[in-house]
């Protein structure tokens, strides 16, 4: 007990000194380097839209429901894609609630994309991601939505598939994925002369 008390003095001093180094000098150094070398990324990879305002982040998913857009995965973040309240559903494999939700989503996905009643549905299209902000969908999921987007926008399916390919991110360390916001921006860009968006 006596030792414990005598060690309290260096303990308190160590807290102060190490806090100054690891919580003061170190983060400021990182901030300075990050802002010099990767300014855009350090501030959240924000994307500016056609009219000059910030419309989102390349890394953060956002919700799309219109038929002329690719749709992201279901989201459990807040009321859906709340980027200030990330999280998953945390429902387990024997959850009735999850089971019902997935069944409903499968039906909705087939209906909106004009698929057969027994058509296979990619798992990512009907399950909520861990962060609720997943910016990507699987290549298969994007492929099944291509025909719908092409039809509504008067584009050829080939053109839309080209855009999907252009926005596909590949890695040997993970599956190939399509960035939903980026592909939708591209779709808007190429379809603007044909049917200007309001």
């Amino acid at each position, binding site marked *: 007990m006596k030792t414990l008390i005598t060690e309290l003095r260096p303990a308190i001093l160590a807290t102060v000194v*190490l806090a100054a180094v690891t*919580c003061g000098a170190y983060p400021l150094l990182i901030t300075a380097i990050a802002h010099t070398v990767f300014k855009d990324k350090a501030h959240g990879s*924000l994307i500016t839209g056609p009219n000059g305002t910030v419309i989102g982040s390349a890394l953060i998913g956002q919700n799309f429901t219109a038929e002329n857009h690719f749709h992201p995965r279901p989201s459990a973040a807040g009321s859906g*894609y709340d980027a200030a309240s990330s999280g998953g559903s945390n429902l387990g494999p024997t959850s009735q609630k*999850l*089971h019902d939700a997935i069944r409903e989503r499968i039906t909705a996905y087939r209906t909106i994309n004009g698929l057969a009643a027994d058509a296979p549905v990619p798992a990512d299209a009907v*399950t909520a991601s861990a962060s609720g902000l997943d910016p990507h969908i699987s290549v298969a999921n994007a492929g099944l939505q291509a025909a719908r987007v092409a039809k509504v926008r008067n584009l050829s399916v080939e053109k839309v598939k080209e855009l999907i390919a252009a926005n596909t991110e590949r890695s040997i360390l993970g599956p190939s994925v399509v960035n939903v916001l980026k592909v939708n921006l591209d779709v808007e860009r190429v379809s603007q002369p044909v049917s200007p968006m309001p």
Partner: protein
Amino acid sequence: MHATDWLQFALFLGALTLITKPLGLYLLQVLDPAGRTWLDPVLKPLEKLTYKLLGVDPRREQDWKQYTCAMLAFSLAGVVFTYAILRLQGVLPFNPQGLPGLSHHLAFNTAVSFMTNTNWQSYGGESTVSYFSQMVGLTFHNFTSAAAGIGIAAALVRGISNRKTNFQVRSPNAHDGSPNPTNLEVRFTLGNFWADLVRCTYYLLLPICVVFAIFLVSQGMIQNFDPYTKVKTLEGAEQVIAQGPMASQIPIKMLGTNGGGFMNANAAHPFENPTPLSNFFQMLAILAIGSGLTYYLGRMVKNQAHGWAVWAAMMVLFVGAAVTCAHFEAGERVFQLVPETATTEPTSLETRFTLDGNMEGKETRFGTFGSSLFATVTTAASCGAVNAMHDSFTPIGGLVPLFLMQLGEVVIGGVGAGLYGMLVFVVLAVFIAGLMVGRTPEYLGKKIQAKEVKLAMLSLLVLTASILGFTAWACVSDWGVVGLNNAGPHGLSEMLYAYSSTTGNNGSAFAGLTANTPWYNTTLGFAMLIGRFLMIVPVMALAGSFAAKQAAPAGPGTFPVHGATFTILLIGTVLLIGALNFLPALALGPIVEHFLMGKGGLF
């Protein structure tokens, strides 16, 4: 598992193997106050200044009680520091969202959680904690709890090894020139806590973190003090994007096996883990130091084959766990539809899901394998960062992380904690082997006697009692059951996971559990304290006891602590003790859920 999954797994194991020896050699220098590193020109002046400010002499060796007391005093100072910051958050700077101070029970839980290297998240990241709290209150412990853990492991290894400095003779009345043998004071020392703490922080953790942080920003991780960004999305909705000084906190979160997320979704958040490459290096960082410490052990005890034998036991368990988890998450019976009487239901759903596996609570950029491997890594170590929601894993996929934590996180393990946890099992393995051949068990020439076995068993039994005791209490209490997100056996798993995670100082969760309530925050807080300190004190006593023993040369009856026989015996000991303690509880949770799921059972 696809071919690309196996490739990723092979790359990961290869990279981990390659860094083990260099890191071990570097640790040898860092953990010696007279050691030399190539960073000395930059850091030596800072190190010296720090000792001067602290008023400590790094070469003054401490015995096990002094070392433990220094560690406890430092933990106490740190927990008060962070508790105060969290409570006063509302009036402190770097709080652009104007977040208020935390409730007393949440502040207690969070301060204890970070001080014990657990980093359990009862708090919600972006919705609860200010930039100042993250950067100062939490990051401080990310560094120091890791450094302290490495120190404890080093102290135990020093005790086991046959260092000359283990033995110090000091005559209290030497100044009067008449050293009377009866007045001689003999101390068995284990190093200096302050030197270990400062040197690990400065020479090991900080330099790696600087490089790692820059790499993570290059992948898209944020590092700023901006207020949350308000954007109007492409379809015209409002979206508020959380920001903050993240890139300085995440490297140490991984490297120090802390795991407390900057954001609520932890390493699943696209800012906190932007690419498959960032995911790969974050996983590697979790296991790096723990793996290097096994090499350090081999060097210190002058038996490198022993270091590698311990490492091999860890890796066998790790590979088995990762493959099991990945197999079930890529699984065939995930979300199988229940056949209904009026069967207009689509039948091909199962087939499709067979290809994709269980994607609920997983990010597409990691897929089921990247998520399963991360889950295994984070619970093999006592990290607790997650890149997928373990609560949504299949029953057996979720059992793997749960069981790894219950084994005591000795598969590589947390920085320091993994090694000292595993050495407890080594003592038991050697003891069991000794009983089987009928000889006095000895470990590296030092006799294992009743005292050592008692201390080893104490450290294991306390953890088991905490996990099962608290879970049982929560099960039969209103406050326990009301927090559940899932019904049926999965609900039991949520509670069992919570107390396994906190007692094991892991910090990952079956996150559906609503744990931010006075009862949960408090009981989980105590589980963390028990798991940290009622483990460390017996371990340090064990270190002191070993330091006081003279090593005898190996004889014909000595059980070798290297080679395949020893590795298999060690694996057997870990699994046997883990299984005996926890199989009944697991049978009622994930195991019964697995069979019910196969029959289409829903709750």
